[in-house]
C-alpha cells in the first residue's frame, strides 16, 4: 500500500505527486496539489461540495481515488474565473445572492458550468433536478435557481427567458 508516483492533469497543468492508492481525489487536490477551492463535505457522495469535472463531466472527487485519474483531464473551481474575471455563472450567483457561507458554491458552480454547456435553456424543474445533487444549508436554493436561470440566459445571449 505504498505511495505511488502519479501525474494529474489539472486545469491545464501537470501535477506530479505521490499518493497512497486510497487517497481520495478530493484530498489529493487539497493536500498534495494545494488546490483548496474544492470543498469536502460528506465524503460519501451525498452533498456535492467536492464536485469537479473529469474529462468535462461533473464528478464527485470524494468518490474517486486520485490514482484513477491518471490520463484524465481534471477541472476545478480554480480554473473557472479567467484572469480574475468571474464566469457568467459566478457573476450571476454573486448578483442574485446565490451563496451565503459559500461552502457548497464550488460544487454548484462546477456542476452547472458543465450542465449549462450541454443544456443551454433548462426549465426551472430541470435546474432543480440537477441542483438536487448539491446540498446548501444557507440559501434555501431559490436564489441559486434564479442565478442559474440568469446565467443561462446570459450565456445564450438571446434574451429569451425559459418558462
Amino acid at each position, binding site marked *: 500500500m505504498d505511495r505511488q508516483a502519479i501525474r494529474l492533469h489539472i486545469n491545464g497543468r501537470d501535477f506530479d505527486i505521490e499518493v*497512497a*492508492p*486510497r487517497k481520495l481525489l478530493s484530498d489529493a487536490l487539497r493536500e498534495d496539489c494545494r488546490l483548496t477551492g474544492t470543498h469536502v463535505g460528506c465524503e460519501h457522495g451525498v452533498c456535492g461540495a467536492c464536485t469537479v469535472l473529469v474529462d468535462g463531466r461533473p464528478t*464527485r472527487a470524494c*468518490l*474517486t481515488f486520485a490514482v484513477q485519474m491518471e490520463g484524465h483531464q481534471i477541472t476545478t473551481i480554480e480554473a473557472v474565473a479567467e484572469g480574475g474575471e468571474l464566469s457568467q455563472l459566478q457573476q450571476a450567483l454573486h448578483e442574485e445572492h446565490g451563496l451565503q457561507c459559500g461552502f457548497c458554491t464550488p460544487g454548484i458552480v462546477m456542476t452547472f458550468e458543465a450542465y449549462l454547456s450541454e443544456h443551454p435553456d433548462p426549465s426551472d424543474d430541470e435546474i432543480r433536478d440537477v441542483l*438536487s*445533487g448539491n446540498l446548501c444549508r444557507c440559501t434555501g436554493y431559490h436564489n441559486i435557481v434564479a442565478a442559474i436561470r440568469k446565467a443561462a440566459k446570459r450565456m445564450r445571449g438571446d434574451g429569451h427567458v425559459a418558462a
Partner: protein
Amino acid sequence: MKPSAFSYHRPVTLDAALALLAEHGDAAKAIAGGQSLAPMMNLRLAQPAELIDLGDLLGLDQLRESDGAIEIGALVRHQQLAESELLRERCPLLAEAAQGIGHYAIRQRGTLGGSLAHADPAAQLPLVAVTLGAQIELASRRGRRVLSAAEFFVSVMTTELAADELIVAVRFPALLPGEGAAFRLFNRRHGDFAIVSVAASVQVNGGRVARLRLGVGGVEPVPVHLDELAARQAGRTPDAAWVAEMAAGASAAVEAENDERITALYRRELTESLVARALAAALKLSGAKP
C-alpha cells in the same frame, strides 16, 4: 470517512482484469463508476485489499440493437442510458429509469454493470432488468455464461456473480408494437433511493391486453416480477377498472417487509399507488384508446 488501504490495479484488457480477479478472489473488488463502492469504502463497509479498476477496459461501453434485443456493455453509464436515442425509442423503460438514478453527477459515473452487481434492492436498473427479463452475460477465466435477471439476483446486495466473474453485457428485449412502458418511484428526497419503485410494460393489440410485465422494487430483498398476476391478463380490456384491479393485485402479491423506518403496510400502499400510475402511463404510451 477515509477508505482503508488497498493495492490498485488498472488492467487495460478484459483478459487482464479477469486474470487479476482469478488471482485475488474474494480479496479483490472491481470498481467501475464507483458511485456505490466508493461510498461503502469511505464508510469502511467495504474494505477490499485489491481494487481492480475497470475504467480503461475498451469495448464494454457500446449500446446496440441486434435480433430484437438491445445489447448494452457493462460500462455504459447511467447518463448514456438516459440520453440514448436508441433506448428512448426501443427500450424506453430503461432510459426513463436511468434518468432518475441519484443525481446528475452520479449518473455521469455510475455504470449499468456496477448497479446490477451492487444489487441494492431499491435500485432502478435491477428492477428494470428483472421486469423485462434481461439476460446478463458474465465472464471469467473459466468461460462465459448467461443468466436471466431473475436468476442473477439472490438477496440484498447478493448476486450469483462469482468472485472471479465480471458482468460484460446485458440484453434487454426491445419494445414490441403496441407496447408502452413507464417507471414510477417514491422517495422522500429527490435523488434518494426509492422506498418503492414500479416498472410496468403493457402491450395492447386490438383493444385487449396482449402482454403485461410488472415489477416492484424496494419491497423485498430483490426486485420482484409479478409474473403470476401478469400472466393471467392477456385478453383483458385495459380500462380504468383493470388498472385499479392490477394495483390492488400487485399490492396483495408483494411480501412487503417492516423495517425501523417504514412499515410493510406503507410499502403496500405505495405499491398500489405506483402500479396504478405506472400502468396508466404505460397504457397511454402504448397508444391504446382509454
